[in-house]
């Protein structure tokens, strides 16, 4: 690379210029050099601060709140076959039937497929997916339901569905228990418990690759109000489909990252896969209705991820397994991989406008993990 040459030459030839400028050749031309060259072209030291920036007013060129620091273009959601905005509210509740004992049986069908997806405009990623989308389908069930998940492997590698929940060893989705070869099929059966905000992911080895290639999805178990009389109202508001629940604006957000050159570092960070998506397509939020976010971290390679909400605070339910907040009145929450939780907040007292949210690891934010809530008086 030319630069290495330049650097080498630099150190070799040295900065004749600055040497003249600093030490000063008393010869005739030196004064001119010192006066004209040094301050303009060469910083006296690398710590030269306080000098006027060469970018007078340049950085504030307007491109919305993020200026020029954003990827160019937009991802073709139609080609991807999924839209990060739609995935916020696209709950899969399964085929419902009654068991002889009166319990509810929910059946799901999930198929693993290899698929090339666009994760930032123009950048393609050879993903492994559940049902052709990353994250996989957001399964939503009720505490106590019997679950039956028919899993087919249409991919090129062995895969499984390992649910974070309570179940028997046979249903764990690890090698020897529900991990299936390409072309094979397996049926996972277990009861939905405990209630909370959970996830499933492939547990084939090497785990790291199977996760960062895209094999994960939300698995939300709503509390059964009848089992929690002491917090029945809270439970009802969490239970999908109740009138109380309809008062909420619920969003599924999966924090993920993509290592496009397979060097065990992510080139793209996002919520629901597409970097910068929610900057370019802010999430419409009705001011009067409270917001509930099912937040799940599956980011590979980095120890933690986080969410910071601008201009507001929220209550946080770690793992979503309680009906009273585990953290009250915070504006930032961190999660290690597979950690998840529920955020509850409202913009009721706010004026309408764009409110930012993003990882508060600035690096993640600047590589795609940021977004906006478009708070309006009424959502059309």
């Amino acid at each position, binding site marked *: *690379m*030319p*630069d*290495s*040459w*330049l*650097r*080498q*030459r*630099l150190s*070799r*030839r*040295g*900065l*004749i*210029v*600055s*040497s*003249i*400028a*600093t*030490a000063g*050749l008393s010869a005739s*031309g030196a004064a*001119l*050099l010192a006066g*004209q060259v040094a301050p*303009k*072209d*060469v*910083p006296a*030291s*690398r*710590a030269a*601060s306080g*000098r006027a*920036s*060469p*970018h007078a007013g*340049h950085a504030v*060129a307007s*491109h919305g709140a993020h200026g*020029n*620091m*954003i*990827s*160019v273009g937009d991802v073709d959601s139609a080609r991807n076959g999924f839209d990060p905005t739609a995935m916020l509210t696209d709950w899969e509740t399964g085929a419902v039937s009654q068991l002889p004992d009166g319990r509810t049986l929910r059946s799901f069908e999930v198929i693993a497929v290899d698929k090339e997806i666009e994760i*930032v*405009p*123009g*950048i*393609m990623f050879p993903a492994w997916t559940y049902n052709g989308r990353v994250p996989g389908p957001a399964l939503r069930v009720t505490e106590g339901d019997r679950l039956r998940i028919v899993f087919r492997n249409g991919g090129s590698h062995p895969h499984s569905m390992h649910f974070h929940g309570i179940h028997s060893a046979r249903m764990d989705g690890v090698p020897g228990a529900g991990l299936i070869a390409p072309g094979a099929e397996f049926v996972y059966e277990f009861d939905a418990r405990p209630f909370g905000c959970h996830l499933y992911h492939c547990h084939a080895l090497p785990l790291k690759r199977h996760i960062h290639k895209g094999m994960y999805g939300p698995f939300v178990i709503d509390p059964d109000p009848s089992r929690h009389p002491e917090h029945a109202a809270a439970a009802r508001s969490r239970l999908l489909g109740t009138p109380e629940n309809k008062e909420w604006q619920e969003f599924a957000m999966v924090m993920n990252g*993509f290592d*496009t*050159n397979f060097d065990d570092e992510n*080139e793209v960070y996002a919520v629901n896969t597409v970097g910068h998506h929610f900057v370019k397509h802010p999430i419409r939020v009705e001011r009067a209705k409270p917001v509930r976010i099912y937040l799940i971290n599956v980011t590979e390679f980095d120890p933690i991820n986080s969410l910071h909400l601008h201009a507001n605070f929220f209550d946080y339910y770690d793992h979503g397994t309680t009906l009273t907040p585990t953290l009250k009145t915070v504006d930032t929450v961190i999660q290690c991989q597979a950690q998840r939780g529920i955020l509850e907040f409202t913009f009721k007292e706010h004026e309408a406008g764009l409110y930012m949210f993003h990882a508060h690891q600035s*690096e993640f934010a*600047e*590589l*795609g993990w940021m977004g906006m809530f478009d708070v309006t008086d009424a959502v059309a």
Partner: protein
Amino acid sequence: MTEIKPPAETGAAAPGPWYSELTWLALPVLLLALAGTLLFASDPLRLLDRGAPPVEKLTFERTILDETGIHLKIRAGGSEPMTIAQVQVDAAYWRFTQEPVGDLAHIATAWLHIPYPWVPGEAHRVNVVTNLGTPFEHEIAVAVATPKPSAVELLPQALVGAFVGILPVAIGLMFYPVLRRASQRGITFILALTVGLLLFLLVDTLEDALELAGGTAAALQGHVLVIVVALMTFLALLAIGRRSGVPTGLALATYIALGIGLHNLGEGLAIGAAFATGAAGLGTFLVLGFTLHNITEGIGIAAPLLRSRPSLMTFVGLALLAGAPAIVGMWLGSLAVSPHWAALALAVGAGAILQVIVEVGAYLSRGRGGVAETLASPAAIGGIALGITVMYTTGMLVKV
């Protein structure tokens, strides 16, 4: 064309009508066309395709920093046309524009304009990401505004170039009156010293040219280009110089000055590049080191003139020929010239130096037995050894 008749030949090949020769010429061309068509039509490589993504390579040729941001000239080297999808600066995606837009074919170039508020004196890392997700990193070690060709910029650079190029050569030439008193053996010694000096410069120039060539796109085959251009230059100058016999006296001195001048062009390029990329300074001793290092060059130029009596203007002309290219080099270098052009300039310099080594050697051995005998004399061996030693030792002052 049709008028041309084949010359009557008396050789073994039987002369045929003119079209028979055309036929023989057309046959291999036809075969080539046929092979190409077959290759594209049947695509046998498809059978070898194991789904591997195409090879992608990107070379950064020029970097310009100004008040509008960072500007990079890139050259693609992919097995398929490459698509630049995104640009990261310091691990953040940034808007950018590409000029011209579109996919980059093999060895095609384009400019990327990134409106990034770079920080003077600090380092920045640019990652150009293709549609395959392959990031190509380019480090800006020390961000400083790229000089623009204006009087304010060019004049001080010219002054530094004069310190590095013209001044030392002039000082070296000023030893001329003293050198004139040398005996025949003394002159042999001084000429041999010149050969030693030139040998040092040859190695130094070639090394720099090859190093630069390493930074060019693979498709340009920089190393081969350097060697070939150096040899072509050598042969061309040798042929020109020998039109009227082995060059001696002023002619030889002029060739030496030319070779050294081209070397100093490369030296200027490097210092000019220092302007362009900025970096924290070393000492004044470095400039003086250069002056010392290059004084020997002046003595070398004077060596073939010891038996003639040139005018003062001749000396001025020789000093400018050998020294002024340092100034030109500084200007070019500061404008962030592409590495392959710099490598080519240095290759020309290496060829020119090789030519004067041969010619000074020939001049040295004229009227004696062979080259080997001449070289075997104590004066010659001592001169060559001293020339190399002086250059090597003073080189320590400038190679940090």
